[in-house]
């Protein structure tokens, strides 16, 4: 039999290699630093939202769990890091670690609630969990500062070296570095057997048990990981803004995130990143141009995208690539 096996295994064996386009993509944050030195806070927040979006992509895009309450983890992470910094433990990396652990625990516990039921139920259960967290944070004014926000955060320099500055340089590189590392990890995850089994679950959840895969176990694992990612994103926002208020837990944040991911194209790590870049840049530009009615144009943009570019930004890019390939007579 061995002799008959004449199959090129490269497509599967080397699926995880870095493509030139990817390397080029990661030059964008470097280039952006020099091109837009006056917008570093925006760029930082784009990087943070991209990480947050990545976390939703892991659970929605790869594992198919819809969520309208992902801000629960983002907010919890933000408060974890914020409270640490407000009580004298201002080292940013420790803050990230603690936020990750705390949110992972919440993610693991709530995963059992979330995994029951179908899509609409999941949407609502995740929503319910996040709304309850919001109410708790609102109630515990003594600890969280309530709607007025958590005061007295003292964030120490990153690695004891780099102080957070007015221009947001440190914050920017810090956020981009964390995003890159976690993206790299997520990429490994996605290309691993675990990642493959998640795709299997999303594509045909009914078949997986018949292949001996413990579906709920896998899903609660990825939900936990997604939660930790979201928690880290929240912690980053808290540290770079040096302030936390209730809105980190708000419904709008969850809904907007879902929007960004769908816009970018779920089920692709770069979709999450590109969606964030497009959405937040559009938001920023439109609200600068027209502070009162920018929402109208943003809404119009969404409607147009759904009607004419259905697969999100990534779908559009793939379409362009296909056309280029066809033009140059390449075959895939």
């Amino acid at each position, binding site marked *: 039999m061995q002799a008959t096996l004449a*199959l090129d295994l490269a*497509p599967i064996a080397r699926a995880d290699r870095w493509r030139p386009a990817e390397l080029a993509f990661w030059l964008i944050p470097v280039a952006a630093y020099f091109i837009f030195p006056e917008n570093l806070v925006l760029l930082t927040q784009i990087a943070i939202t991209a990480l947050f979006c990545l976390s939703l992509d892991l659970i929605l895009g790869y594992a198919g769990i819809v969520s309208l309450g992902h801000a629960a983890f983002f907010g919890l992470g933000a408060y974890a890091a914020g409270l640490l910094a407000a009580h004298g433990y201002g080292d940013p990396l420790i803050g990230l670690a603690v936020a990750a652990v705390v949110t992972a625990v919440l993610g693991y516990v709530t995963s059992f609630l979330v995994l029951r039921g179908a899509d609409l139920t999941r949407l609502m259960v995740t929503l319910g969990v996040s709304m309850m967290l919001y109410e708790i944070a609102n109630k515990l004014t003594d600890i969280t500062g309530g709607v007025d926000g958590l005061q007295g955060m003292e964030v120490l320099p990153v690695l004891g070296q780099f102080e957070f500055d007015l221009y947001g340089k440190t914050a920017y590189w810090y956020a981009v570095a964390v995003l890159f590392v976690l993206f790299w990890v997520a990429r490994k995850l996605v290309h*691993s057997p675990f990642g493959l089994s998640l795709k299997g679950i999303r594509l045909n959840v009914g078949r*997986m048990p*018949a292949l001996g895969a413990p579906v709920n176990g*896998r899903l609660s694992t990825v939900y936990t990981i997604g939660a930790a990612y979201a928690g880290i994103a929240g912690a980053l926002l808290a540290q770079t803004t040096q302030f936390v208020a209730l809105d980190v837990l708000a419904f709008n944040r969850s809904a907007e995130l879902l929007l960004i991911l769908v816009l970018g194209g779920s089920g692709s790590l770069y979709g999450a990143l590109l969606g964030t870049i497009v959405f937040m840049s559009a938001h920023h530009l439109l609200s600068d141009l027209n502070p009162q009615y920018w929402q109208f144009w943003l809404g119009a943009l969404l409607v147009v995208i759904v009607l004419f570019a259905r697969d999100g930004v990534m779908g559009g890019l793939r379409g362009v690539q296909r056309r280029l390939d066809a033009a140059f007579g390449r075959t895939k």
Partner: protein
Amino acid sequence: MTTYALQTRNLVKKFGGFVATNDVSLNVEAGARHALIGPNGAGKTTLINLLTGFLEPTSGDVILNGEPVTHLAQHQRVKRGLARTFQINRLFADLTVLESVTMAVNERIGIGARFWRPIGAYAEAVDEAAQLLATLRLLDLAHEKTRNLAYGKQRLIEIALALAMKPRVLLLDEPAAGVPTSESRELFETIAALPRDVTILLIEHDMDLVFRFADQISVLVSGALLTGGTPDEIAVNPKVKEVYLGEAISV
């Protein structure tokens, strides 16, 4: 003494007042080519679901290789050597054939939850999947997306995924359902060529295939076992003829 690969004892499943499976005690010998036949609505699908663990029985037991597995979940029964195919394809449309089968192999050898090294790093799994595709003569389609395959080929993938479990007992749920005759021959040849140490329980409508393939036949009617025996015995059994009367089949 005969060893049984798969047995049920007094298996009962009720949906409300409706008895879908009525006191079924089925014995499938190790290594057998056992067919389960019955008219539409006889409860074949329910029985399969009870055997695989998709449903829990109201009462009675399922015994796999001498051990009761009645309360084990589906994936745990798979780990004990019980694999199945589905009457309606349950495939992974956006994965390639090789990815699908590799995923199945990953699960069997217990690396399905490894999250750090890439799929390609577990060469033994990929190689085994490729081997399996080779035996099923699917190698040239290895890098095709499942959704792009002809239906007959997709039915083969159904079987390939089950075989990747290295099952001791394989449940084939109407493997030829919906396959045009032009493609069905290849399918039957593949099934006939499966190694003898795999016990096969076949659920099938096509009587030609059943009588050509099976060495044992059980007949299910209205949720209960009507009778069982060798193809020759079943062929002359008046009760079976009565049940199938009007279905116009020549036996």
